[in-house]
């Protein structure tokens, strides 16, 4: 293990994050708490008070504090902060420190996803994860363009009860790439990108996953990696180079690739399909973290028979899907999700489109609310699945 483990080193790690996130510039105006989707329902949570405790060095209090894990890391507070504080960076560091001292959030779904990701650190692992790829999809074993699929094969097993179908997005992604003239390489032993471990402070295991993914990508000769999942996109594009130096390939999000292909005329949608009104859920990682707002909208507007309606809170102001990193799903998450679904319905849309499998799973789960019923129910689909259905 290369990371710090002694108390002194932990203190240094936190001090460095406080400095780099500009936490000391906080003048306690409380805008972060005012805009925070968690604080809206959970009065015990406040980004500002968490920051103040971290700056004061009250580590022992933070270890047992459930609120360390309540933050969705959705970055909405960052967009409002007049002192330009990077709360995400600070939260990540606080979680790393707290985790080393034995603190942990409540892992939703019994910790199944956390176990799966840690299992994937095993070098001897030989996954059998591409059974869903059929003959109609053209893929390669080696080549310059890789499609980084993400964890959807696992999600569809674990979360079948919510009615989500995240693999439809992965299948759609391959069909779209094929239609644009690209035969992507799929990694047969692609591991979890490590996003959730990184954001819950487990840096050692994140690095083990990252190192093995980088090796697999280099082995197939990747020059461009198209990532279908916003979390994977951010992790590959930002966190891999931050830990391992400059990458030997370019990282592109699927929606960026699709928008470019549409503009250049390489990708055309001539398919029919029912006319529908859709709205778009901006995933936090794609939107506020990576600044991609236009690409998904460009794709939606190019689809025949699809009319686009914006939700009241969209783009930089979009609301999170309610849970981050499969941790601390609470009644507050359900309130955030129900609110978001009501907003989607109020936009006049009959279908909610998202570009993130987690948004799909979380919002689908919230739709199963036995009390709210039709108040929160509408179609929900992945952007790639919808777009692929409108190909010829």
């Amino acid at each position, binding site marked *: *293990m290369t990371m710090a483990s002694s108390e002194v080193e932990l203190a240094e790690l936190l001090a460095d994050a406080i400095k780099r996130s500009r936490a000391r510039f906080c003048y306690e105006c409380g805008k972060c708490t005012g805009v925070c989707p968690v604080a809206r329902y959970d009065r015990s949570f406040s980004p500002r008070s968490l920051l103040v405790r971290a700056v004061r060095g009250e580590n022992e209090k933070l270890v047992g504090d459930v609120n360390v894990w309540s933050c969705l890391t959705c970055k909405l507070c960052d967009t409002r902060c007049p002192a330009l504080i990077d709360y995400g960076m600070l939260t990540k560091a606080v979680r790393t420190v707290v*985790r080393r001292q*034995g603190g*942990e959030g409540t*892992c939703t*779904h*019994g*910790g*199944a996803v*956390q*176990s*799966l990701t*840690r*299992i*994937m*650190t*095993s070098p*001897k*692992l*030989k*996954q*059998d*994860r591409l059974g869903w790829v059929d003959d109609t999809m053209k893929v390669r074993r080696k080549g310059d363009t890789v499609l980084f699929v993400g964890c959807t*094969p*696992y999600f569809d*097993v*674990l979360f*079948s009860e919510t009615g989500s179908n995240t693999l439809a997005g992965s299948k759609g992604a391959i069909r779209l790439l094929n239609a644009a003239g690209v035969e992507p390489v799929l990694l047969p032993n692609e591991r979890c990108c490590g996003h959730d471990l990184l954001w819950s402070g*487990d840096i*050692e*295991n994140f690095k*083990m996953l990252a190192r093995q993914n980088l090796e697999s990508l280099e082995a197939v000769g990747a020059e461009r990696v198209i990532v279908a999942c916003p979390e994977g996109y951010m992790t590959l594009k930002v966190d891999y180079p931050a830990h391992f130096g400059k990458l030997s390939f370019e990282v592109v999000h699927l929606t960026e690739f699709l928008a470019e292909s549409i503009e250049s005329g390489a990708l055309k949608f001539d398919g029919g399909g029912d006319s529908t009104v859709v709205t778009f859920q901006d995933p936090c990682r794609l939107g506020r973290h990576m600044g991609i707002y236009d690409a998904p909208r460009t794709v939606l507007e190019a689809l025949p028979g699809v009319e686009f309606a914006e939700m009241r809170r969209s783009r930089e102001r979009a609301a999170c899907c309610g849970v981050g990193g499969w941790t601390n799903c609470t009644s507050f998450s359900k309130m955030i999700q129900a609110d978001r679904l009501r907003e989607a319905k109020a936009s006049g849309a009959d279908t909610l489109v998202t570009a993130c499998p987690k948004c799909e799973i979380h919002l689908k789960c919230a739709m199963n609310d036995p009390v709210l019923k039709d108040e929160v129910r509408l179609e929900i689909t992945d952007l790639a699945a919808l777009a692929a259905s409108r190909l010829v």
Partner: protein
Amino acid sequence: MPSEPGGTKTKASGATKTKASGAKQGGEEGFEPRVVAFACNWCSYPAADAAGINKMQYPPNARIIRVMCAGRIHPAFVLRALELGADGVLVSGCHFADCHYLFGAKRAAEQFEKTAELVRLLGVEKERVRFEQISAAEAPKFVKVMNEFVGDLKRLGRSPLAGAANGELTIPDAVGEDRT
């Protein structure tokens, strides 16, 4: 369950070292698989009890965890055991018609279906996870299942996942000296 890999190390490390060092890899002689068995309070656990009372011999490789209902065994628990270095995991509950809670046995089968599919995706041998229905009256079946399962695992050898998550093996060796 703490999920920091080093979290449960202290108690286990001594036993792991003393005995696992003698165990050979890959189905070789002397390899003792480490098994986690989730057994239902109303059927399989009493079956194991009865096997013991009747002095029926079966391999001592399993750490039996008594649960109120096998329907509670979410895939997460089985995955967690594999993550921590178990070579095999047994989930044993009631026959469908015998379930103490009426719906639990069905739930257990549904949960295990997911578990088996996840294990398949991970590329782990499907024989490493096993679902059984053993009633309280079926002590001989419990013995038979244990014999078969441990035999299968001996042939398969050490789990490819043992050593995942920073190489920590945190389950005490079943036949180690530390049998508390």
